[in-house]
């Protein structure tokens, strides 16, 4: 130990300069990597429906964070307080009783509503992340320095999991940014998160997932996926998209309403131009404003489509029926069913109005 000290003292200054440069480089490369999210779909996602316009090359994330889109998504999610605050697993506690005036009760309800609305935050809709293959340093002289590789994790105080730099020195002497799965594992080791597991749970494997889907445990799977994966993890994208497709095929859209996943479902279906069944569901449930919002979302996500072009000629304060009619005429694949549902909804409204007049 003592022998090495003079060696360090003599050279420390020049070393430190190099060090800083190296680490600055490392961080810069890492950042630029995370910012470039324009990625192709991962091989596991081959089954995802690919539209002729090449949606796979477009990045949905900037669209997703657009405030107009976020407004629409949170509006159509709905807020069924019994469902949001419904039975959740929690520790048993004695209930507290309070005597309140009407004004106080109103205040308490407002506070509770705000607290519950945080449960409806929509998980980001992103393209899968891309592996970083460029090594930071290649050193053939260092090959076989050890039989196992070394993983170095930056545990600087206050650093976020997504900004953490993790590097691997492999046995052949190359130093590279850690692959995403290693980085996720290191984050879980040095900054464990509740609900996330170190090894990927088996329920996310293909065959187990299919079984869970046939049991219709949609919200459970989606909640678990949100805990386990980052939003740009190919596994997260594969799982959630599989569920969205299953929900759409089974027509169980209402299961996800008033949960945080409804916005993502609507965005996914609209992004891939397969929102017809969702629209049908909305019309059948007499949710006219939601249907209008969904068509508006379609025009925002596909500004070049014929639907957007013909809807721009319709005035913005036109009724939901008119807007949906434009969508049925231009972009729909389930024309007859949608037309019927729209007609039925209109008739029911008219009957209601007449009943009120009488």
């Amino acid at each position, binding site marked *: 130990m003592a022998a090495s000290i003079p060696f360090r003292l003599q050279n420390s200054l020049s070393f430190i300069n190099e060090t800083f440069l190296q680490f600055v480089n490392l961080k810069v490369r890492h950042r630029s990597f995370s910012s470039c999210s324009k990625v192709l779909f991962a091989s596991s996602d081959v089954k995802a429906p690919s539209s002729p316009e090449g949606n796979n090359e477009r990045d949905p994330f900037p669209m997703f964070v657009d405030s107009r889109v976020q407004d629409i998504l949170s509006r159509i999610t709905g807020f069924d307080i019994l469902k949001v605050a419904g039975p959740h697993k929690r520790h048993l506690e004695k209930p507290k009783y309070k005597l309140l005036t009407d004004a106080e009760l109103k205040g308490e309800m407002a506070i509770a509503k705000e607290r519950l609305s945080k449960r409806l935050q929509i998980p980001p809709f992103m393209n899968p992340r891309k592996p970083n293959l460029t090594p930071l340093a290649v050193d053939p002289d260092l090959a*076989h320095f050890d*039989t196992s590789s070394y993983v170095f994790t930056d545990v*600087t105080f206050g650093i976020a999991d997504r900004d953490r730099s993790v590097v691997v020195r492999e046995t052949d002497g190359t130093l590279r940014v850690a692959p995403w799965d290693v980085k996720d594992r290191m984050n879980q080791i040095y900054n464990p998160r509740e609900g996330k597991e170190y090894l990927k749970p088996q329920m996310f494997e293909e065959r187990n997932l299919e079984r869970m889907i046939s049991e219709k445990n949609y919200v459970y799977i989606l909640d678990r996926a949100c805990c386990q994966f980052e939003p740009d993890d190919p596994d997260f994208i594969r799982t959630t998209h599989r569920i969205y497709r299953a929900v759409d095929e089974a027509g169980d859209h209402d299961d996800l309403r008033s949960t945080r996943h409804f916005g993502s479902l609507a965005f996914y279906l609209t992004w891939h131009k397969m929102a017809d069944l969702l629209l049908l569901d909305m019309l059948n449930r007499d949710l006219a404003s939601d249907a209008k919002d969904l068509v508006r979302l379609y025009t925002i996500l596909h500004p070049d489509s014929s639907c957007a072009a013909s809807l721009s000629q319709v005035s913005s304060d036109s009724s939901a029926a008119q807007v949906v009619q434009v969508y049925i005429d231009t972009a729909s694949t389930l024309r007859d069913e949608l037309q019927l549902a729209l007609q039925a909804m209109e008739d029911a409204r008219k009957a209601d109005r007449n009943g009120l007049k009488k």
Partner: protein
Amino acid sequence: MPRIPLRKSFDIIKLAYHGCNNRPFFHIVLLKNISKRNAPPMEMLGTYDPMPNIYNEKLVSLDIDRIKFHLASGVSLSKPVEKLLGLSGLLPVHPMSYMTAKRNRQKLEEQAESEAANKKGEVEES
């Protein structure tokens, strides 16, 4: 009466053993050079787990910001820590790492040669 001069005291980043029997685990700590190995550290700067996990990785965590601060204020490093920081890319690779690598490679080559010779011998016998 001649007095024994006091040992020179300076700050050093070194490994402190925190494992148990047959399970080594180290903390990377800042200490005085004259303090005991597992003395309460002035600062803890990371950990080092020398036993490979199921993915054949040895895990090292480093508080990079604080280590850089201490390096800039002229702290010393023990040899194992120097090697680790060299492998991490924070410092240049330690010369000793290169030597070990070379020796390991030579050993592997010798092994491969002897195995090849053995095989040749077996073939000739049969």
